[in-house]
Each structure stands twice: as structure tokens, then as C-alpha cells.
């Protein structure tokens, strides 16, 4: 649910008392027309607040926390769980890690890029191609989707559709965190709205979580990811073939 324009104006006045809409737009990179339209409609997107707070060197999570629907984001952050951290590592990075671990001379410690070229490159920043779904799966106790649906009134199939499309509305992301009892900004990281640093995740937390996994855990996780990816790709290819057949005969 986007933020009410009134509350946004009040917040903006506190952040940049003298700036005009044009100034704010220029500083934040939000298109002036977009910003004006959101103000006229009375609904300001969370992404707008994030962009503006970055422009004025504020923490976006704290900024969102000053709005009523997100009041609890202002509280001190709960650190991310290991599963959450690992869920935000791209599948390709997991595979790199497996390859690096099985290289013949990878035995000396968890290579941090010092020896030869065999060490994996640094992890790509979240979000990755299946961030949202992997995050929800990582914190799901089996009933999570139902609880989120009950708390927000969003139909389960619409919620699932967002996860599959690797999208998650900020409101739903936070509601999911609340329902799972994990750090409130984690979902915003998975949805790509804020960075892991902005959410208060320690800089090397994901790498440390990855290094802490046994070979078995890592391989099993990568296997799950590959299986899911394979399924998605096959479905995509099936749709693709079907469309091609339609073009061939009716296009």
C-alpha cells in the first residue's frame, strides 16, 4: 500500500524544508512527472521515499519507518538468519563456490581471493533472479503464506504470483517478515527496494554464511535451486514453443 501524500509531504518537509518538487526530483533521480503524479493521486510509492532518502543521506529503512504502516521498521533491526543470508546468494554464486571448493588445491582455508585465480569472485549483491521466492522459502514454516494472506487480505494465489515473478510489494514484504518473526527489512532486500547494508546486514554476512555451510548443505541447496530453475526454464521453453507454433500457423 503506497504512502499517503499528506504524510509524505510532512516527512519531506522535515528532510528538505526548502526544496521544491523539482529540486527533490533532480536530487533523487525520480522523474518529476512521476513524483507530481504520485502527489496528485495522493499515493506515494515506497520506492520514491527510498530514492529521496538516499539523495539526502538518510537510511531508507529508517525513512520508511517514519510512516505509520511501517512504524516498526524504525525499531532496532533483528539480524538476518543464516537461511535468509544464503537465500540472497545467486544460484551462479553457489555453483562458483562448489567449483572453488572442489578444485584440487582449494584445501587451504576459505580462499578469500589471495591464492591464484581459483577463488570465487565476490558475491553479487542481492536481489538475484529468484531472490523473493528463495527468501520466503527460507523463512517459511509451512504456514507462513496463509498467515501473510490472513494478515494482509491478499489472496494466496496473488501472493504466489508475485513470488514466482520475483516481485514483492513493500507492504507484503514487511508483512511477511512480521508473520515469520524475522528482521523486518529482509523482505525489502529480497525485493530489491533497499540494499543489504541499508537493512543493517553486516558487510560479509552472506559470504560468512556461505563459508559456514558444509559441502553437503551447499550441494543440496544448489541442487534444489537448479531443479527449480530447470522447471521454470522448461515451462518457459514450452510456452515459447507453443507461441512459435501459433505464429507458424496463424501469424
Amino acid at each position, binding site marked *: 500500500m503506497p504512502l499517503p501524500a499528506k504524510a509524505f509531504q510532512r516527512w519531506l518537509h522535515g528532510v528538505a524544508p526548502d526544496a521544491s518538487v523539482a529540486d527533490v526530483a533532480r536530487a533523487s533521480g525520480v522523474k518529476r512527472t512521476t513524483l507530481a503524479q504520485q502527489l496528485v493521486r495522493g499515493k506515494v510509492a515506497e520506492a520514491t521515499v527510498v530514492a529521496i532518502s538516499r539523495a539526502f543521506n538518510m537510511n531508507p529503512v529508517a525513512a520508511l519507518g517514519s510512516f505509520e504502516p511501517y512504524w516498526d521498521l524504525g525499531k532496532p533491526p533483528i539480524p538476518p538468519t543464516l537461511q535468509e543470508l544464503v537465500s540472497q546468494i545467486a544460484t551462479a554464486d553457489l555453483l562458483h563456490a562448489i567449483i572453488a571448493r572442489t578444485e584440487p588445491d582449494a584445501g587451504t582455508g576459505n580462499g578469500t581471493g589471495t591464492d591464484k585465480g581459483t577463488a570465487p569472485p565476490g558475491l553479487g549483491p542481492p536481489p538475484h533472479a529468484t531472490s523473493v521466492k528463495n527468501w520466503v522459502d527460507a523463512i517459511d514454516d509451512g504456514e507462513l503464506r496463509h498467515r501473510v494472506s490472513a494478515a494482509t487480505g491478499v489472496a494466496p494465489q496473488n501472493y504466489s504470483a508475485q513470488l514466482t515473478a520475483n516481485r514483492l510489494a513493500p507492504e507484503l514484504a514487511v508483512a511477511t517478515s512480521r508473520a515469520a518473526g524475522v528482521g523486518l527489512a529482509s523482505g525489502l532486500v529480497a525485493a530489491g527496494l533497499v540494499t543489504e547494508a541499508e537493512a543493517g546486514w553486516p558487510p560479509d554476512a552472506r559470504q560468512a554464511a556461505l563459508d559456514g555451510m558444509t559441502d553437503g548443505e551447499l550441494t543440496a541447496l544448489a541442487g534444489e535451486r537448479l531443479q527449480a530453475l530447470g522447471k521454470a526454464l522448461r515451462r*518457459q521453453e514450452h*510456452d*515459447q514453443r*507453443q*507461441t*512459435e*507454433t*501459433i505464429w507458424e*500457423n*496463424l501469424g
Partner: protein
Amino acid sequence: MSEILPWITLVVCASAALARLPSAVRGVNPTLFLIFLLATAAGILSIEQFYMAIDGALGGINIAHVLLRLIVFATIYLIAVRVTKGFGAPDAHRMISGRPGLAMLAIFTAALVTVFLLMEPAASSVRFREAGAVSARNEALLPYYWAAARGYLAYVSLALLPALLRSVRESLPPLVRTGAALMAAGAVATVAGLCLEFAPLQLLVVAPAVNNGAVVFYTSGLVLVWMARVKAANRGGHGTSSTGR
């Protein structure tokens, strides 16, 4: 009102044929052009002035009407072949162009021609509407003529309907799904057209709207599917929507 409907139908079909001409010249799915061309010919034969002139040239005994019905058979046959292939419905495809399908086509064609030959020659009248007034025998035979004329269309439409409805629900480009929905509406209207032949007289006033609607729905459905390809091709990569996103 019912005088303007055939004109609307003709304009829709003729525009589609004209728009499809360049693709046909380039050799892209010429069947589609042929479908629109046949539909246009049927549209022309459904308009009084053209019908009288053409039938006059054919002897003035409504041979043009049999011709019109056969053109409509050919049109729906071609549409059905393309749609069942394109939307991947092998069962429906067999029911239309396999042995049973061709048998149906032969039976209905033979029935149509036989009933026509059994009737006493009647002076040209568009939509064959005055043929019944010529004699009691003609009046008795006319319902059979129309049953044969609309029966095959309804048969094909019923065979197509499941495949079309399935495609509406599948994860295909929105324009394709809309096109399939329009063709499904055309199929329903075609079946309704047959039912109306046996309906009470009060209902007959809607018959022209239903029958012309069927043609317009089928045609615009085909055009939309084609538009979907044009749109996909414009986005890059000849109708192959990117798999990257």
C-alpha cells in the same frame, strides 16, 4: 438495421484481406490471406445488389447461394485447420481434416447440393429468402437446406471450441488470448446460428446479428492473433519473445 450488418461484415473481411496482402506476397502464411479473401467473397455474395448481379450471370436460379454456402464451408474449414494446428489440438484437428472430418464435410456438402437440386428453381433472391414461396415442396425443403448449410459450420465450431477456450486460459501473449476468446465467441455465435434456424419466429429478428457477428468475431480473432505476432516481432527477434526477462 439488418441491411447494414452485411456491409459491416464485408468491410471487416475486406480490410483484413487487404491488410494481409503484403504478407501473402512475401509468402508468409498465404492461407490466412486466402481465408480473409474467401470471407470477403462470402460477404459480397451476402449483399443484395452484388448477389442479384452475380446470380443473374449464373442463370438467375440462386446457384450463387449454393456457391456462397460452399465458400463459407471452405472458409471455416481453413480457419479450423489453422487454429487446431496453431493452438496444438490434434484431436480437434482430426475431427476436422482427418477422415471423420472430411467425411462430415462430404456429407454436408452432398446434402446441401442434393436439397438444392430437389427444390424447384426460384428466381434470384438474396439469402435465398423467397425460395420457399415458390411451392409447397420448396417450403418443406428449405429448413433442410439451412440445416445442411449451418450444420457443418456448427460441427466445426463445436470441434474448435475446447481448443479455443483452453488457449484463453493458457499463459500466452494477451493479444493471442483475446484473439482466441473472440474466435470462441464466433464459434458460439455459429452454433447459435444453427439453433436459430429452428427457433420460434419471434427470435428470428436476432438471427442476422448472430450470423454476421460470428463472421466478425472469427475474422477479428484471427487478426488479433496476427497482431500479437507483429507486436512480438517489433519487440525484436521475429516473434520470439525474449526469455531473458
